[in-house]
């Protein structure tokens, strides 16, 4: 067991280092002069001497005047100190500060939508697999949902509930007339703004999970051990219980796999609803060629997905004895 986790941690560590390195390389690969960009943003001075002074000044601030290897060393050094540099786009705000402002909104959007869609989806899928007619009536909904592009669902919801019916706001995280404070007015307003983006994330995820679970359950109910239980007169309850439990396992891995998609989904959803999360930040950073902000966002996502993957791996192993052996390459 310890050996297994040791290896796991090693794998993820390695993954992180490589991913981070690639992350570091990204901006350096990009054509286009970041300093010219930041100067254009901050307000360029036109006479050569002053311009040069400014160039040197900002090049230095961003540490781009160092040899590559040293930039790389610094990158790791500051990374370990939680310092991701200064945002160009939001000069002179540190990237970490910018990220920390966005993170809460992401967690607020992602955690509930992922967990709930996973939970509800699985329940629903298992429910659908119960009888033929349920299956034929319920499953199609799942397929339609999971096949819907995030942003399109977002657009539809925004259009229908935001514009046609006018029930929900379709932009921002809280009303224009409010300043963040602890009161039911504010909390209600936040939830009000949160609902539609959450729904579009939730629904798509829900569909996917439901379908996945439905198919899994069908498999499991047809598995030999299910038949054996039935042959020994075990009530449907027990058979289903086992089938559900075993169908869960692939669903857990499925969850890990879906994370990447959900993040992408969150990005577009946040774009549609201009909800101020990381995905949104990332898009802004990309469009503004803000190297350090881009790096920050990627690192954040990488770490997030890695951690999530690891947690899921652990859960999986705890629940399923088979993986342990499969992983260590042993065969029964």
């Amino acid at each position, binding site marked *: 067991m310890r050996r297994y986790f040791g290896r796991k941690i090693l794998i993820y560590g390695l993954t992180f280092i490589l991913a981070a390195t690639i992350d570091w390389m990204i901006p350096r690969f990009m054509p286009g002069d970041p300093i010219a960009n930041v*100067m254009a943003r901050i307000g360029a001075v036109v006479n050569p001497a002053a311009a040069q002074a400014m160039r040197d000044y900002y090049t230095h601030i961003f540490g781009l005047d160092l040899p590559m290897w040293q930039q790389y060393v610094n990158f790791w050094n500051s990374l370990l100190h939680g310092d991701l540099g200064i945002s160009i786009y939001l000069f002179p705000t540190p990237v970490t500060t910018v990220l920390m402002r966005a993170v809460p*909104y992401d967690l607020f959007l992602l955690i509930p939508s992922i967990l709930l869609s996973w939970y509800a989806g699985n329940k629903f899928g298992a429910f659908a697999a119960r009888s033929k007619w349920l299956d034929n009536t319920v499953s199609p909904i799942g397929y339609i949902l999971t096949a819907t592009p995030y942003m399109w669902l977002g657009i539809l919801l925004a259009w229908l509930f935001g514009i046609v019916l006018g029930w929900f706001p379709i932009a921002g995280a809280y009303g224009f007339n409010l300043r963040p404070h602890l009161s039911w007015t504010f909390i209600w307003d936040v939830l009000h703004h949160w609902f539609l983006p959450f729904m579009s994330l939730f629904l798509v995820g829900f569909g996917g999970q439901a379908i996945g679970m439905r198919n899994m359950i069908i498999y499991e109910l047809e598995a030999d051990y299910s038949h054996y239980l039935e042959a020994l007169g075990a009530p449907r309850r027990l058979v289903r219980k086992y089938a559900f439990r075993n169908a869960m396992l692939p669903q857990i891995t499925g969850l890990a796999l879906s994370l990447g998609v959900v993040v992408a989904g969150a990005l577009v959803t946040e774009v549609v609803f201009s909800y101020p999360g990381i995905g949104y930040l990332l898009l802004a950073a990309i469009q503004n060629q803000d190297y350090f902000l881009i790096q920050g966002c990627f690192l954040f996502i990488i770490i997030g997905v890695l951690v999530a993957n690891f947690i899921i791996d652990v859960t999986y192993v705890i629940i399923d004895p088979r993986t342990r052996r499969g992983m260590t390459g042993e065969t029964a």
Partner: protein
Amino acid sequence: MKRVLSTTVALLVVLTMVLTACGPTPTPEKITVRETVTVKETVTVKETVTVKETVTVKETVQVPVVVTAVPEKPTEVVYPRNETIYVSGAAWGPASTWNPFQPGSLANTTGTIGFVYEFLFAFDPQTGKVTPWLAESGKWTNATTYDVILRKGLTWSDGKPLTAADVKFTFELSQKNAALWFSPLWTYLTGVTAADETHLTFTFKDPLYQEWDNYLYNLPIVPKHLWESKTAEETNSGANEKPVGSGAYLYDTRGEDRNVWVRNENWWGIAVFGKPAPKRIVDIRFSSNNVALGAVIKGDIDLSNNFLPGVATLAKAGYVKTYFADAPFMLSANTAVLFLNTTKKPMDDAKFRRALAFAIDVPSIVNIAYAQLVKAASPTGLLPSLSRFDDAAVLAKLGYSFDTAKAKQMLAAAGYKDTNGDKFVEAPDGSAFALEVTCPFGWSDWMAAIDIIASSAQAAGINIKAVTPDYGAWNTALQGGTFDMTLNNWASMSNTPWTLYNLLFRHPIQEQMQSGNFGRYNNKAVFDLVDALAKVPTTDEAGMKAACAKIQEAMLTDMPMIPLWYNGLWAQFSESAWTNWPTEKSTSPTLPTTWSGYWQLGGLMTLINLKPVQ
């Protein structure tokens, strides 16, 4: 069940995080980015003379951290509608700095300049007059001396008096600090003396009168007692949270998508100009203009300065009000110019450039790309507010307008013929060419515009195709001069035509052209004409006109760039909460805008004139 529980827990935890979250997240704003750059230029199209001393940058640079901007003792947390005005269209990213010397970034805290920090003078584009603000008066006592008398009883928001010493200090900040945008001033400003609390004397050597006025209403005056202790770095790039200024509004708070300003009840100007109507200004940054459009329709926004496609329909339907009741609905804010890279063939040929000018279907751009929200530009490129400087004779002789037939014939005359039968003309030397007209990807109105430019040029037999790189790539190509032809509109409202021509004919040519003459048009004669104009006293309008006529003649003969249309001063407002907006019918209309750098161009007066709905 376990999961559901954890979920709810997570919800609550995160909710609290959100509540305490210090705020904003940047957003991409494609169309307003351009507006921003415009804004930037309004404050940075400043001089071109070279400084004597170059600054040296300290080895270790401390960059201040933006602290959470929620004040210690929050004021109201739910803003009453009837004393709050909601505006949008200026910011393109969350607030990151309140340093009045970082004009570009200030677009995100529009108001830092104009609300918090003020200027000696203001400028009203509607009348073309430079009017006193902090200054009571100012005049050239002789060719090289300019006297300023400050008003009495000016105060900073921290209660300290604003005196001539502060003004002197501000101007002298850039004397030894080349990284400040206004350092070039010191190439002809020789000294500032403060006779007493209110009397200032500026002495010059060979002054650029035209530019001096720009400084008068664009250089924000900062308090000496707070800034003299700042290091060069802090002055140049410090974030300067909780700014202390002299203006009509105080910085209140900010959110990821907004800045909030609260009225300065002790503002010295209340006695002079009157009290701004809204107690609180909530400046919303919309992720994209269509979101703003929705807010405007719902009446959530009182004044939107976003570019809203289809607003013409809405205005006609009465959803929103615009400056003009009918096309073009908007005042003109700046000129969209097609820069031709004169270092490349065949753009190096004036005949070709002129033919191209006739080939471009500007009417379609106005009607299709903008649905009539803009109007075609005068060939001189000057805004309507400066139309008095258009030289009728020159226009009659050299003006151009969309005329495919004429374009074809001009090309033929210049030796551009289709020799290889590909429907496109080849250069006189027989070489075929394929050109690209570019604008940043996502700037949809411009994308539509360059599509039209390309197709109409093709109709005239010129092989041009529209290409839309990402902003960064576009910007690099623009400043590095690697493009074929591209759109730009970085010159805007000014008291003098010199501002535009200074941009179009920026010189000397450098390997990075950061704010003008992107086509690298190199013509000493024209440069001299522009420099000559710069030295004409702003009082001498006849002299200015004469100088402009020469420039316009040279420009239209050589056609190094092609002015196409005026981008609008996008402004749509609702009268649900506030009335008395400036329109064409107003007796003395000011500018209905919140763009950064426009407060002193009438924006603030607009707020002062507003009336709340009872």
